């Protein structure tokens, strides 16, 4: 085979390889990066409150990460990911995915989100507090009242802002009720410095009784529900 043919075959192969590798790396990046829809989620026709409850429970014993939107549901802390960052959703990211909300602000359409993809959604706790631009509604609570005399259901959420909570703006989902009439919620807990005694995270999700604040009885904390539930 003469040199010309060797060069041509090599060129062809390298060109093909270049395009495939470029595609794969761009695809890997865009599919794992926040605020993209590439394999992170898909439109679905329905989603119930009980499905939201099973979804939110998968975050149990996973880390909390401010601004985060992904977790590997293995009840353990995963290693730092160079593209997605540290594992763990924050409160609004967890409720956004669990409620199967659309990335389109205010839309009540349902989207199924892959837990391991870093998608936080457009809503912060304050956006939930303000009604999610129409995607959720307030059932109880205002600046001068609380939710003590209102019965919330599994899949509803408590949301509060710092002014009333004492700590930062926060949202937690209700999973069920206790025999004593209290609520079970999935809330973040202080966990020392690392579940393994040497890790870096101090704040992890757990299904618990009441949560870490008396959400039901704090004036200014609202009980909210996803629309159209």
């Amino acid at each position, binding site marked *: 085979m003469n040199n*010309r043919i060797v*060069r*041509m*075959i*090599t*060129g062809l192969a390298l*060109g*093909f*390889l*270049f*395009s*495939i590798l470029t*595609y794969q790396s761009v695809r890997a990046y865009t599919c794992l990066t926040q605020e993209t829809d590439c394999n992170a989620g898909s439109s679905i026709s329905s989603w119930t*409150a*009980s*499905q939201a*409850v*099973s979804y939110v429970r*998968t975050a149990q014993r996973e880390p*909390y990460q401010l601004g985060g939107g992904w977790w590997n549901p*293995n*009840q*353990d802390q995963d290693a730092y990911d160079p593209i997605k960052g540290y594992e763990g959703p*924050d409160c609004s990211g967890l409720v956004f995915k669990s409620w199967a909300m659309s990335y389109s602000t205010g839309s009540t359409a349902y989207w199924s989100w892959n837990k391991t993809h870093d998608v936080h959604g457009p809503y912060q706790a304050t956006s939930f507090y303000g009604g999610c631009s129409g995607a959720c509604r307030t059932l109880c609570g205002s600046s001068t009242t*609380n939710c*003590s*005399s209102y019965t919330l*259901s*599994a*899949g509803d959420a408590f949301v509060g802002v710092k002014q009333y909570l*004492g*700590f*930062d703006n926060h949202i937690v989902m209700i999973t*069920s009720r*206790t*025999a*004593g*009439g*209290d609520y079970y919620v999935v809330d*973040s*807990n202080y*966990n*020392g*410095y690392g*579940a*393994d*005694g040497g890790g870096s995270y101090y*704040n*992890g999700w*757990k*299904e*618990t*009784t*009441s949560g*870490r*604040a*008396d959400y039901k*009885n704090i004036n200014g904390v609202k009980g909210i*529900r996803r629309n159209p*539930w």
Partner: protein
Amino acid sequence: MKLTFSSQLKNRLLPWRDFALCLLAGVVIGVVTISNGFFAQPAHAAPTLDLSRFDDEMNPAIYVDHLSPVVVKEGETFDLEFVLSCAYIDIFPDCSPNATILVADAPNGKFTPIQLKEDNQSGSPVWKTTLVAPMKKGQTVEYYLEVFEPQGKVNVRYPSSGTIQVNVVETFTEVLVSPSPEITTGELVLQLPWGNNESSVGLFEDETMIAGPGAFATSTKGEIALQDPVNRRVLLYNPESDTFQSFPVHLSDAGDLEFQTDGSLLVANFFGEKTDGEESIVPQLYRIKADRGAIERVGPIFARIPFYITKDASILNRDDSLVKPMNAQGKGRSRDEQKNDRGKPPLGIRWLDDNRSRFSDPNAGLAIEISSVSPSGFISHFVKTNDGYVIVFRSDVMHVLWLDREGKLMNDTTVKPELYTEWNPYTLVKVTPNGDVWYMNSTLDGIAIYKITQP
């Protein structure tokens, strides 16, 4: 000379022209291949479910949320409702569990299957049936659930072992509670500032949370044990010597401590740790023996939602079963041992609505129905004491009721706990066997423990 250089260059580059053209062609072929979907995700074959990722105790394949009626009156009609949801909706988004309840209305009676009916509540399916309590004093209604989900081919029994028992009583001792009495304050027993020295407790504050002690316990000798997760220790106060002892251990703010009858102190981290032999984070139990020598790890607690430690070394799990993580020799028990030997809480509670709750002590043949003029809040404690019972209702205040052994209301009082750090109404309030109620406040300055003596 110029032409010679140009032609030399041309002669040198000419062979690479084919290479460049082929490189370009390769890129074009690659793009065409990609755009034709050759490298897209292959169409999924029918998904299969790896059941090994689930276990009945910590991580069930199908969640069953259910509140037992606990105690009903003879001939009373009552509903049983179950919410079923798949933990594997990521694989089968349309999973649709259905269930059959098996009911027996006599001890050792035959279980009869009843197909549950699906009802829609707030957009979610609820499986329910209605039963009538038998007209026979002292009888129980027992039941369990068999759940099947066809897509994942998953069978689940609820509860995973044993049955749920509803106590049938002839009548309730009726108690009417007036609106909460005027707010009082207990007697201050111990006050500690925030800090990390011998006689202080740790405070953690950042933009997302404020954390401090999430539990305390008191012994019959007057000792006070405090969970101090920020300083990674248990702090033990001895009132006789007015000294503190520190026991280093990694804790979360979710946990509890409780003195046992043998004088030892059990300490639980309900968030948990990953230990040898476990693939995930599991709640952990520790013990400080009566000689107060050192804190030692007992082992894991296989409870999905632990509430608190009891005085007989059990953990109340999801308010309907008792997990026993430790054997009589003080050693940790295996997952199977904990699963196969679960207990039932000796006392039953059932909140019916804002103004009505039921309480039962089947061993004493007692059933109480409490009605309140104003909303009572939820029930955080129902404890049998030396003289009767103590009930604690929580709303924005803490309403404590003392009842005698027949269930008659003897006294009540109201306090308003103050919480700067996180709250836990179950582990920051303790009822002692002599009927005293202790509670912890937290403020900007530190923590304070108060005692309300039984009137």
